[in-house]
């Protein structure tokens, strides 16, 4: 039932399990309070998320702050232990795997963090930063310096800067160092958690291009987590939209942006300003009332219903929408669209908002 298999992938669909298959992933955090740190509630950060990512492919995950997209990324890498669900890497479930087994798989999946200022140790030279993975994973036989220089060249940095410190580089260059470090052990999967959000526009394009070129050259699979819908459309093959811990819509990139079916996706897209005055001034903004509800106590049924403009419209037209509060909409293939477009809404309706 996952759409990734049916979406356009470079070359023929591979036989066997996908590189990464996430099924019903749930992550909850205990909310403690009081003197004795008693558990007073549960933050339901991710509530049942499923998707596949294959080689040469990018799954973009978009959503607003607090929707659980970063938590999902961290659960995939087992940096956070999922509460339930499975994360299969080439058919091997990482959840519940022993430390030793996990450690053997770790080199194959790496992460690039958002903030290139915080994620690089200021006291380490570029060489020691990029070569640290070799030491961590006991690969002492590698000709470190040669490999570091090769990696630097690969990400568009000058190899002669190998002895410099992070502060001698600009934001975009630091992010390239972060990418080089992630690539050091020849991973198959990269989790990119807002990799370009902290960069200036003119620098951002260079890093996005770099990621695309690396994917082409090395066949990497990307889990690209971002809030910028324009960057996500540009880089992703498939896009998943998250709201309050759930995927509300998932489809191949162009299909999702051209024919969004979930009211939240539509509102989100209508709110993104387009850098084109004539287009932007003619667009209709769907303004959502209020703020997202707390993930400690999400609404019953459809989690979006409290802010749903579509439900309001239907109610005004006299339609019975009580199902929204009573029953949770499942992420299912949206009937009128082709295969590969899933939306979790009781009343999905395609609407052009771009």
């Amino acid at each position, binding site marked *: 039932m996952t759409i990734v298999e049916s979406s356009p992938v470079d070359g023929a669909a591979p036989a066997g399990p996908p590189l990464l298959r996430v099924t019903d992933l749930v992550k909850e955090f205990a909310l403690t309070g009081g003197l004795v740190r008693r558990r007073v509630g549960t933050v339901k950060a991710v509530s049942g998320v499923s998707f596949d990512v294959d080689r040469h492919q990018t799954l973009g995950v978009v959503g607003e702050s607090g929707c659980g997209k970063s938590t999902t990324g961290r659960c995939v890498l087992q940096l956070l232990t999922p509460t339930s669900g499975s994360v299969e890497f080439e058919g091997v479930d990482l959840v519940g795997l022993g430390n030793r087994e996990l450690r053997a798989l770790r080199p194959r999946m790496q992460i690039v963090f958002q903030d290139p200022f915080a994620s690089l140790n200021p006291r380490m030279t570029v060489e020691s930063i990029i070569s640290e993975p070799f030491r961590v994973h006991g690969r002492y036989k590698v000709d470190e310096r040669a490999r570091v220089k090769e990696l630097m060249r690969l990400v568009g940095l000058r190899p002669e800067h190998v002895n410099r410190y992070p502060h001698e580089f600009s934001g975009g260059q630091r992010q390239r160092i972060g990418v080089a470090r992630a690539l050091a052990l020849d991973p198959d999967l990269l989790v990119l958690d807002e990799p370009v959000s902290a960069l200036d526009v*003119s620098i951002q*394009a260079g890093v996005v291009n770099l990621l695309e070129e690396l994917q082409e050259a090395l066949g990497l699979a990307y889990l690209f987590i971002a809030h910028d819908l324009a960057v996500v459309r540009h880089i992703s093959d498939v896009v998943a939209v998250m709201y309050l811990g759930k995927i509300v819509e998932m489809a191949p990139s162009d299909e999702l942006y051209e024919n969004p079916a979930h009211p939240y996706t539509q509102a989100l897209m209508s709110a993104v300003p387009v850098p084109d005055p004539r287009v932007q001034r003619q667009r209709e903004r769907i303004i*959502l009332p209020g*703020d997202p509800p707390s993930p400690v106590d999400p609404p019953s049924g459809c989690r979006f219903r409290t802010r749903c403009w579509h439900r309001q419209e239907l109610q005004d037209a006299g339609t019975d929408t009580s199902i929204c509060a009573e029953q949770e909409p499942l992420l299912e293939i949206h009937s009128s669209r082709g295969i590969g477009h899933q939306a979790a809404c009781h009343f999905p309706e395609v609407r052009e908002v771009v």
Partner: protein
Amino acid sequence: MRWIRTRSTDPAASGADSAVTAGDDVFDALPPTGDGDGAVLDISVVPDRETWHGPLLEVRDLSVSFKTDEGVVHAVDSLSFEVRDDETLGIVGESGSGKSVTSMAILGLLPRTATVTGEILFRGRNLLGLREKALETIRGREIAMVFQDALTALNPVFTVGSQIAEAIGAHNEVSDAEMSERVVELLALVGIPNPRERAGQYPHEFSGGMRQRAMIAMSIANEPAVLIADEPTTALDVTIQAQVLDVLERIQDRTQSSILLITHDLGVVAGVADRVMVMYAGRQAEIGLIEEIFYEPAHPYTKGLLASLPRFDRRTSERLHRIVGQPPSLIYRPPGCAFHPRCPRSEVPGLCNQHLPPLVETSPTHASACHFADDVQAAALEEIVLPDDILLSEPVTPGDDAPPEDAT
């Protein structure tokens, strides 16, 4: 018009206990007042809207520099522009381009370490060199500011209502009852539900979008002639950004304030600005009407910037265009045009790398600081933007990473 300064009470405006909703015509409902009626501060030195017909705010040859251990940071260099009545001027630029420093200079909020020269004329009166006391009569009343980070701009130990009241009380003498009534009206105006209850809450009880609206409420409390919004939506999610931009638009319709919108987001500018000024390395790169900047850019930087944006409303499979290199250091700024090391048009030796390009008019409303402004404007995008080359990497000058904003 300046309803907030009046001391006269109108039962319709202040007596009613019913909650004011965002849709109510708060400004219209208030009684018109005669000039000077109840005004606490002498504003006779600054002409008002009726008697002044020149540009509302005029910045002439503004330069701001900071002395640091590593050298002098030239944050803003010979900047001139004007803000007219009832317009929204967008200032666009990347970090370190000097846009925030410019806004701080206008409000006189720069630290003492800053060296400021030039003129900032508000209705013909130079604000630079005004004493703090005189400046205070203008700041917050005639020119107000919405800051980027509402959480740090609001004081955590006072209620939101009392902070808005402080903004009103700084320029007006009003009774307590009237004051709380106005606070509620202002909160309602920016679309905060249950304004009466919300006024008694602390900033941490507000969400990010609500805090930003509370800040807007505070800044418009005295119906300023100019509202400076410095990255007002940068810290917000897009759906919340849409709400806040909507509020700003509605406010402007009502108060006829001019807005100086400082942002790095070309999408936001595309939606709300009448004119746009593009800044690069502390200087004006280009200024013009919104359509001129987006559809007929005459500066290679503007052109490159527009081309480097991924578009979410279009199918693309190509690589993004990219401006090579890094923004320059403001201590060791390249001679001539500061953009020349990154510019594909700077091949002419001895021109771009030696001579500072003057601002050339390409139309009566459009000017570009490029030696080849006309050529650039006429050229196709491909001729201006270099093809991407990922193996190209620039050396970085030490100290490159200290944006002047950090100094303020």
